Structure formats: structure tokens, C-alpha cells
């Protein structure tokens, strides 16, 4: 479904991504891990059209989407959550999701219909009780759920989750983990997931890709990469390999 | 610096080439064209000085101080009235500097710091309000009659029957000296470094123990100080009235977008380019188009290449 070929991106003198190639197949949950600064969020930004890669191509469902604008990519079927949550702070939770519904899809939809669907999505993630709260007042757990609800509301075929568990306590981590599984099983959405909370990735991901300093250093099932020498070296250093 | 030198070289080369071309093409009028260009350069030096205060404030505090022009005019008025009463001498010219510096500190600490903490639009609107207040105040205090000091001074004769006035040369030299001293101040003194650090990254500067609020106010005050310097020179050469603010603001902004923000040499280079283009444009299209040429260039650069020619970093 998603194919990245040889993505390279530098910012001035800093090379953030160096020839990264990977593939995410339909129906998978693929994890993307790596030490801080390895280029995970940059890769997401490139896929979503926020950055244009210096070299390389991004294919989505066979179509070249490299360098297209974010709102076009959203309408094509890629949804995304942000690492540092970006809610529309002065709008209510319901309005946040309605906005995503009204603009994130390629088909036209009326306001009343959008409202109904927004309520449905809030129900799916478990935020129905907060629908009239102003987004700026929510706590981090609810904000993360809102991010997911918004992304789902655009009816994506591929969902990019960027550190969606950061800052959550263990109970919330397992809740969100189950939610992500439901997204795949009930909605049939493919998931590409950056995460630092290893427990969650190891539990839910089918496959894991590891980046270090802008390069892909390993790929495989969670068990394989947990014992991979290169991965251990990247995270903990040489002596532990 | 290393990257900009070739650009400056290229620019100088272009100017020389165009002069040579002009000379061969319009032999009789080449002298006047050359004089226009030289006058443009001298004027440009002054524009660079005007721009520098604005550039400093913009680069360090990220405020577009749209009342900068009004402060230049205020400095001009102070210099003018002192000169009328006590004659033109270095003391009267320098008198406006401390006054505007203190005013800058007060405004910076009370209004601007608060405005900056509220958002991006607020400082601009506050400065807008200030420009309105200043204009009205100056008009009330000193009426709308245009003012100017006329110092009879000779000039250097130039081929074609024109001449380059000594006053223009003095102003140009003062501008360059002023800019160089600012550059040295920013580079070598402790406070200068603190200012540059705050301009580059406020959070890090704060962590290094720099009182960012005071430094921001200081940067604002320095901007007004430079406006005062420009103002003193204004009273010697131009005629001005309370509504002259936009004239200076426009040229300062234009010089900045041409030369890049926060870059001392860039402000000077931008000012010179602007001075030359304005002078040539005015001689071709008529004096009434002077302001419009400047504003149009400013708009054009914003639309086409907002980073400027010598930008060290992109503040946009």
C-alpha cells in the first residue's frame, strides 16, 4: 500500500534521512522505532507532504505522491496523528472531529451528516462524554484519543500514528493499544506506527522497522529485531551488543 | 560572511558594468547617469543606517516596528529644534540619542514585552497604534509645516554639469561608521553577544542566564537609538513633517528585505541598491514617483524573494 523508495532529506548540513526504503502492505500494523533523532518523524512528514524529499519517491496505492500538498494527501486516504498533539484549541471536541470529516474526505457531506458521523467516531475512541468540551482544556490522554478520532474521521486507508502513547500511564497505554487493534480489525485500516513505548509495539505490531541516524538498520518481526545486534547497539551502545 | 562576499563582488561588478554600458550608449548623458548612480549610493548609505535600527529590532525581538519611521522623524525634530536654538554642532546632533534610547527602554519594557508575550500580531498592532499617536503628537506640538536645516556646503564637481554635495558624502561616511561600530559592538562586547544570542534562540539564551526580557527591551531601545542617529542626519539633508514617517519606514523595510534581516552589511548593501534604483527611477519617471518606486520594490521583493539577497537566516 505504501512504498518508500530511497528517501533522502537533509536540513542544511544535517542529513535526517539517508536512502530509506520500506514497504507497508495492506492490513498490516507496522512499527517504526529507533533512537531519538533517527528521522522517524521526518519520514512521516515526508510521506504526508509537509516536507519534500531531496531524493526518492513515495508511492501510495501505486500512485506517486511525493511532494504533494498535505491536504491533497489527506484526501487520497492517508491520515496522521502528530507527535506533539495539535488540537484546534478553541473549538470543541465535536467540532474538531467535524472539521476533519468535512474537509478530510474527497466526497461532499452535509453539516448534519458530519455531526452524526463525528459522534460515531467519538464513540469509537471512547470520547463521547467530552464532546462539548473545548479542546484546549483536555488532558493528554483525551488529547491523544482526539488526535486518533480526527485522523480516523478522514476515512483513511493508511493511518500514520506518531508516538501516540507518549505521556500515557500503563492503563491508558493498553487502552490505546486495544483501540489500535480495533482500528485494524474493525475498520480494515493499515497502520504505520512510530513509537517509543516498546511494550506496545512488541505486543501489537506485525512487523517492525528500525531507523538509526536516518538509515534503516533492521526489519523483521518484533521478536527478531529485539535480539538484533544492530538494534541493540543503536539503542544501548557497543558493549551491550 | 564567506558566502556573501562573492555576492557583493558580483553586485559591484554589475554596477560597474552597467555604468560602462551606460557611458558607451549615451555618451552625452552618461555623466548625469553616473552622478545619479553615485548620489544613489550615497543616499543608500543613509538608507542602510535607517534600516539598521529596524533590522536589529526585527532580528532580535521579532517585532516589526512600524513606528520606526515616526521615531526617525522625532529624532529629526529634536535635532532641528536644538540646532535652531543652539546652532548646528555635534552636541545638538547627538542630543536626541539618549532621549530616544530611554524612550525605547520604557516602551520596550512596558508595552512591547507584554505584546510579544501575547502573540505575533499584537506587537505589530501596538507599533501601529504608537505610530498613530506619535504622528498626532508631533503634529500637535510642532505643526505640519515642513522643516529642514539648510547648510550651505560645497560639492565635488562631476562630469555632465552636476556635482556631488559634501553633505551627502559626510552623511554616507557617518552611516558607514555608525554601521561598523554597531557591528563591532554586537560582535565583541558582552552585551552585544547577549543580544545576538537572544536573537538566535530565546530559550537557550534564557538557560544561559541571560535576562531575555531586559535584553529585548535593550534591543528595542538600540533600534530607537539608531533611528535617532538617522533622524539627526535627516534634519540636515531632507525636509520633513509629522507625516514623513512612512517615507523612512518604507525605505528601511525595503532595504531590509533586499539585504536580509539582522545582517549589518546586508542592510547597508540593501540600502545602497535601493538608493541607486530609486535615484535612477526618479530621474526617469519623475520625482513624484519616488515613494511609489520604493514601495513597489518592497512589495515585489516580498512577493518574489522574501529572504533577501544576503539573508543569514530566514526570519519569515
Amino acid at each position, binding site marked *: 500500500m505504501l512504498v518508500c523508495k530511497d528517501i533522502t532529506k537533509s536540513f542544511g548540513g544535517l542529513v535526517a534521512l539517508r536512502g530509506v526504503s520500506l514497504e507497508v502492505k495492506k492490513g498490516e500494523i507496522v512499527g517504526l522505532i529507533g533512537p531519538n533523532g533517527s528521522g522517524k518523524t521526518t519520514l512521516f512528514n515526508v510521506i504526508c507532504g509537509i516536507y519534500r524529499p531531496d531524493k526518492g519517491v513515495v508511492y501510495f496505492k501505486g500512485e506517486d505522491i511525493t511532494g504533494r500538498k498535505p491536504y491533497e494527501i489527506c484526501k487520497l486516504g492517508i491520515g496522521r496523528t502528530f507527535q506533539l498533539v495539535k488540537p*484546534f484549541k478553541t*473549538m470543541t471536541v465535536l467540532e474538531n472531529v467535524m472539521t476533519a470529516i468535512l474537509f478530510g474526505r474527497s466526497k461532499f457531506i452535509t453539516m448534519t451528516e458530519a455531526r452524526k458521523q463525528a459522534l460515531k467516531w467519538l464513540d469509537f475512541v471512547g470520547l463521547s462524554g467530552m464532546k462539548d468540551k473545548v479542546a484546549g482544556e483536555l488532558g493528554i490522554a483525551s488529547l491523544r484519543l482526539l488526535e486518533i478520532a480526527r485522523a480516523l474521521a478522514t476515512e483513511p486507508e493508511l493511518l500514520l500514528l506518531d508516538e501516540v502513547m507518549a505521556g500515557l500511564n500503563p492503563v491508558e497505554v493498553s487502552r490505546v493499544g486495544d483501540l489500535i487493534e480495533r482500528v485494524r480489525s474493525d475498520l480494515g485500516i493499515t497502520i504505520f506506527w512510530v513509537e517509543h513505548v516498546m511494550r506496545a509495539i512488541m505486543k501489537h505490531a506485525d512487523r517492525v522497522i528500525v531507523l538509526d541516524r536516518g538509515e534503516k538498520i533492521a526489519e523483521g518481526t518484533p521478536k527478531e529485531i529485539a535480539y538484533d545486534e544492530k538494534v541493540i547497539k543503536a539503542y544501548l551502545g557497543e558493549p551491550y551488543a | 560572511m564567506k558566502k556573501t562576499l562573492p555576492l557583493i563582488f558580483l553586485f559591484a561588478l554589475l554596477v560597474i558594468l552597467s555604468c560602462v554600458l551606460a557611458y558607451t550608449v549615451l555618451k552625452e548623458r552618461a555623466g548625469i547617469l553616473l552622478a545619479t548612480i553615485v548620489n544613489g549610493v550615497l543616499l543608500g548609505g543613509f538608507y542602510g543606517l535607517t534600516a539598521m535600527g529596524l533590522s536589529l529590532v526585527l532580528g532580535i525581538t521579532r517585532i516589526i516596528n512600524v513606528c520606526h519611521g515616526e521615531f526617525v522623524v522625532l529624532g529629526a525634530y529634536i535635532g532641528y529644534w536644538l540646532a535652531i536654538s543652539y546652532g548646528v554642532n555635534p552636541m545638538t546632533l547627538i542630543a536626541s540619542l539618549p532621549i530616544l534610547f530611554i524612550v525605547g527602554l520604557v516602551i520596550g519594557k512596558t*508595552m512591547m514585552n507584554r505584546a510579544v508575550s501575547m502573540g505575533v500580531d499584537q506587537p505589530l*498592532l501596538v507599533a501601529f497604534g504608537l505610530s*498613530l499617536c506619535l504622528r*498626532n503628537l508631533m503634529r500637535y506640538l510642532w505643526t505640519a509645516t515642513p522643516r529642514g536645516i539648510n547648510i550651505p556646503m560645497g560639492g565635488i564637481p562631476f562630469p555632465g554639469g552636476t556635482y556631488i554635495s559634501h553633505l551627502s558624502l559626510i552623511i554616507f561616511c557617518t552611516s558607514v561608521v555608525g554601521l561598523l561600530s554597531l557591528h563591532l559592538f554586537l560582535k565583541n562586547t558582552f552585551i552585544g553577544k547577549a543580544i545576538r544570542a537572544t536573537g538566535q534562540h530565546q530559550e537557550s539564551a534564557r538557560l544561559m542566564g541571560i535576562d531575555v526580557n531586559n535584553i529585548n527591551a535593550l534591543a528595542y531601545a538600540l533600534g530607537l537609538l539608531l533611528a535617532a542617529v538617522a533622524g539627526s542626519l535627516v534634519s540636515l539633508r531632507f525636509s520633513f513633517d509629522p507625516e514623513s514617517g512612512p517615507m523612512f519606514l518604507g525605505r528601511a523595510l525595503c532595504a531590509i528585505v533586499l539585504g536580509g534581516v539582522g545582517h549589518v552589511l546586508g542592510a547597508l548593501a540593501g540600502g545602497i541598491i535601493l538608493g541607486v534604483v530609486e535615484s535612477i527611477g526618479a530621474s526617469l519617471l519623475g520625482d513624484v514617483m519616488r515613494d511609489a518606486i520604493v514601495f513597489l520594490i518592497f512589495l515585489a521583493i516580498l512577493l518574489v524573494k522574501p529572504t533577501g539577497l544576503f539573508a543569514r537566516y530566514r526570519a*519569515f
Partner: protein
Amino acid sequence: MLRAEVYWKSLLLAIPIASLASAPFLLKSAYFVHFFSLLFLFLALASAWNILGGYAGQVCLGTGAFFGIGAYSMMLSLKANLPLYASIIAGGIAASCLALLIIPLFRLRGIYFAIGTLFLPDIIRTFVLYFSDVTGGAMGIYLPLIRDPLFAYTFLLAVSVCTILVTHFLVNSRYGLAMRAIRDDQDAGEMYGINATKLKTVCLLTYAFLCGLAGSGYALYMGFLDPYTVFHLTWSIAPVFMCIIGGQGTIWGPIVGSIIYVVLSEQLTFIVGELHLLVFGGILIAVILLAPYGIVGALKRLSSNFVREWKACSYAKT
């Protein structure tokens, strides 16, 4: 909103509008017509600015350019023997064309759009002065019709009502949600499908067209234009003042702001004479720093806080 709600709300609005429309004919007071014509003019400008500045979040400091170009275009169209209504619309269209030229400024951060528009009135004024044989230059240009204050009054009333209606429909539509979204977080908005540039462009063109219409109304009302008055800084500052004092991003904000502005500018000249602009500037700065949401904004916040406290208390009782 339910159908019934829409009906009785429109009726509620129609009453004051109808009374304002018929008032001059009943009262026969020249001062009334003068005062309210000015009020409607400024209200139109404030509401139009509110669309771009209050809702789309792009501060425009050059309203005078669009206003002036509308006024002059109407005059020149009349002189070219175009029918009256076509000339009026021509004013709006000319202002929109000017707006088209500055669309590339949206690529920059908001404040650079603001200063890009700052000198627009001066540029247009210079062109008006340059082509003085057509525009009358510094001497000004007269309306080739007999000046009819009542027609101007009615037209200005219509324009201001139109502007407010446009704001209302825009804000309550999906585009209202989109505008709030990109104002809160443009990157997130773009990621969820909102084309921010297109949205801002639509707001800009709407604003420009309405300012152009206001300019036409001004020309109709004054019967005479001269470049120094028409492109004066006041026309650029007034909408900013009105919207900030009244409250940006609200429908009642410009209404409150324009009333305050018109009343103040009449009264202040009596009280402080020469210094009235100084007072305006001072008020503007004070409001920006101390009450950034304006009067209507502050009231809204107070009332929502009050409602929340009240709800919390009533929950506590049960």
C-alpha cells in the same frame, strides 16, 4: 438551527433594518442621515475587515487601498457612462482585482502580509496622482450625478447589512469551522484536508469586494473624491480599531466597534481637539494589551465562564 428558529430570528432582524431604512423619510433630519451614513460606512468596513482579520486571522493594514480603488473605479465608470449599478459593482470588482495581485503574500507569515499591505494605499494614490488627466489628480473628481444623500444612505445600509449577512453565513458554514481550525493550528488543518491558502484567498477577495462597495458608497455619499482623503491612513486604521475594540472574530464586534468609533470621533474633536488621533492610538494600544478580545469578546468569555460556573454549581447541588 431549526426552520422555525430561522424564521423568527430573521423577523427579529428585519424589524430594526426596516425601521432604519424608513427612518430618514420619516424623521427628515439631515444630521440623522449624516450620522447613520457614516456609521453604516464604517460598519461595512469593519465587518469586511473582520472576515479577513478576525476569522481568517490575516491582519490587513491597507484597507484604504481597496476602499479608495472602489471609490475611484465607481467614479470613473460613471464618467465613462456606465449605468449606476454597474458602476457600483465595478468598484467592488476593481478592489477584488487589486486583491488578486497580492495573493502571493499569503506564502509568508501573517505579519509580513500585514506590512506588505501597509503601503498599498500609498502606491495606489501615487498612480491616481500620476494619471491625473483621467482621475483628476490632486484636484479631485466630482460625481457626474446630482448628489442624493438618501440614496447613499440606503445603499450604505444595504452594504453593511450584506456584509454582516455574509459574515454570518460564512461563519456558521463549514468554512467557519475551517477558518477557526487554521487559525488555531494551520499545519494540523492542512493535514486534515483544509487548503489554507484557498480559504484565505476567498476571505481576501470577499473582504476586498466589500471594501470596494463601501468605497462606491462613500463616493455616492460625498459626491467628491480627492486622493489625499480617500487613501488616508485613517481608512486603514479605522477597521483595525473598530474590530479590536469591538472584538475580532465575532459578529457583534464590528457593530459595537463602529458605533464606538463614530461616536468617539465626533465627540473627541470637541473634547481634546487636535489630539483626538492620539487618544485613538492610546485606546487601541490599551485595548490590545489589556483587553485583547475586545468588548464583545470579553463579554462572551465572561458569560461562558458564568454559564459554566452556574452549571457546576447546579450539578453540585444535586
